């Protein structure tokens, strides 16, 4: 399948502080890729590079065949961009902002925007700055839907949304993307509900990529095992079989891509005594925290 976005060997630093080195990823046409990571791991940096607001130290991003450093007006018209916090021209009202944007896009889908606006309890003359965060997110989403781009780039869109709006946003977006064959690239530091949306995920940690695979694959291969140890001072080496672990007195939560059998034999080989060993089902959020740690 054709790639809408190809990022090759992206390397960026802020001063001497490395954000990441040699980051590679592609987004296939029609897929939804989620870039997950805690705050400050480089999610917005990636979005800025993708949109041409930042030139990486090295490497390049090709979007719809063009280098993101210099996007042509046509390619920009094919990217729907939702800024962190649903920033929009808040000095306009919902009527004005539609009038403004419609002048730029020949295939502007006015109805798509107004259908979504009809669901909000706002008056057409109400300024966007006076709306709630949830309402603003719908205005921003409505504008992107009306723009009808091939690629949607959403920067941390769940931020500030209450659970209802988050669900609404995610479900609406997924149905739309799948029905219209749109490609979506989204970042988030809130993982809750994210598995309802994304097909593939990249998990960022500081300076490195922890995971880059389809969500389904990640959820089936990445596992959590809980057990109790007799010696509370036991430590595990990370990097091999053990991806990460959390310890609370004698209780251990161990995260691994290995099977139950492999883990048990590993524990035996290390001479660790344990009891109450069980595999625990995880949500994507659990898996994310398990992988990146609580801190």
């Amino acid at each position, binding site marked *: 399948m054709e790639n809408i976005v190809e990022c090759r060997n992206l390397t960026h630093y802020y001063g001497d502080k490395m954000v990441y080195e040699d980051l590679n990823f592609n987004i296939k046409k029609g897929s939804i890729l989620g870039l997950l990571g805690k705050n400050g791991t480089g999610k917005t940096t990636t979005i*800025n590079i993708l*949109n*041409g*607001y*930042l*030139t990486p130290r090295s490497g390049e991003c090709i979007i719809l065949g063009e280098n993101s450093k210099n996007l042509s*007006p*046509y390619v*920009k*018209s094919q*990217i729907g*961009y939702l*800024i962190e*916090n649903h*920033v*929009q*021209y*808040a*000095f*306009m009202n919902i009527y*004005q902002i539609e*009038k*403004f*944007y*419609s*002048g*730029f*896009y020949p295939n502007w889908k006015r109805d798509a925007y107004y259908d979504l606006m009809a669901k909000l309890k706002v008056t057409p003359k109400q300024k966007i700055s006076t709306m709630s965060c949830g309402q603003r997110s719908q205005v921003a989403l409505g504008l992107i839907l009306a723009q009808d781009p091939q690629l949607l780039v959403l920067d941390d869109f769940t931020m500030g949304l209450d659970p209802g709006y988050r669900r609404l946003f995610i479900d609406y977006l997924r149905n739309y993307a799948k029905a219209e064959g749109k490609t979506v690239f989204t970042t988030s530091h809130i993982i809750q509900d994210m598995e309802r949306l994304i097909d593939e995920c990249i998990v960022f940690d500081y300076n490195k990529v922890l995971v880059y695979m389809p969500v389904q694959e990640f959820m089936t291969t990445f596992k959590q095992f809980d057990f109790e140890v007799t010696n509370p001072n036991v430590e595990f080496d990370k990097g091999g079989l053990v991806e990460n672990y959390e310890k609370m007195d004698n209780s251990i939560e161990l995260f691994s891509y290995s099977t139950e059998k492999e883990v048990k034999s590993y524990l035996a080989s290390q001479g660790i005594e344990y009891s109450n060993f069980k595999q625990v089902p995880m949500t994507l959020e659990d898996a994310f925290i398990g992988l990146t740690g609580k801190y």
Partner: protein
Amino acid sequence: MWKSMFYKEWIKVRLASILSLAVGTVAILGIYLNVRHTFIITNAHEFWDGIINQRHIYFKLFKYIPLGIGILIGLSQFLPEVKDKRIKLTLHLPLNEEKAGLKMVAFGLTCLLTLYSILSALLILPGRYYFPYEVVALSANTIIPWFSAGLAAYFITGLITIEPLWKYKVFYTLLGFAFINLFYQSDLAGAYQYAWLPFLGIISLVSISILFSIYRFRKGEM
């Protein structure tokens, strides 16, 4: 696209424009009420003497109003763009980023020049009712540096507002202050008649500064 671009700019500056027009008009009204009052309570020829021989500028109240308008229009146009880094939205519009920036400035400039034309006409033309044309002509000459200062202030406000780094914002403010100061060096009516053209030349040098600011922003100075 021009229409849409101008529509957004107009939404931003309309309040500031109306306010500027109102303040300018009220000031002009005050100036001429004062002239009328002086003509009635004292003698007209004494007022003339004040202007012609004692170098009194009867509309001095207006001195810093064009400057204020320039800054106000600049702020009302560029502050909403940098709030929450909304300039990202503007740069993401499907048009060349440089053109987008220049269109914004073109609109602001048109708006400012319209305001200035109206206000300078309101300020100068009624003078013909009270004074000989020589006074009107030199008065028109006297206000040129004041309006030029406003124009310069508009461009520099844009430069300072869009500049992403605080350090440079401070430097540009200092430089801007020094620049604006040059327009208020002499209180003598008509003193700038040989200088306003070169001053307009320097103003035109800073007129496309938005391209520099946008470039810095796009390259990731934040």
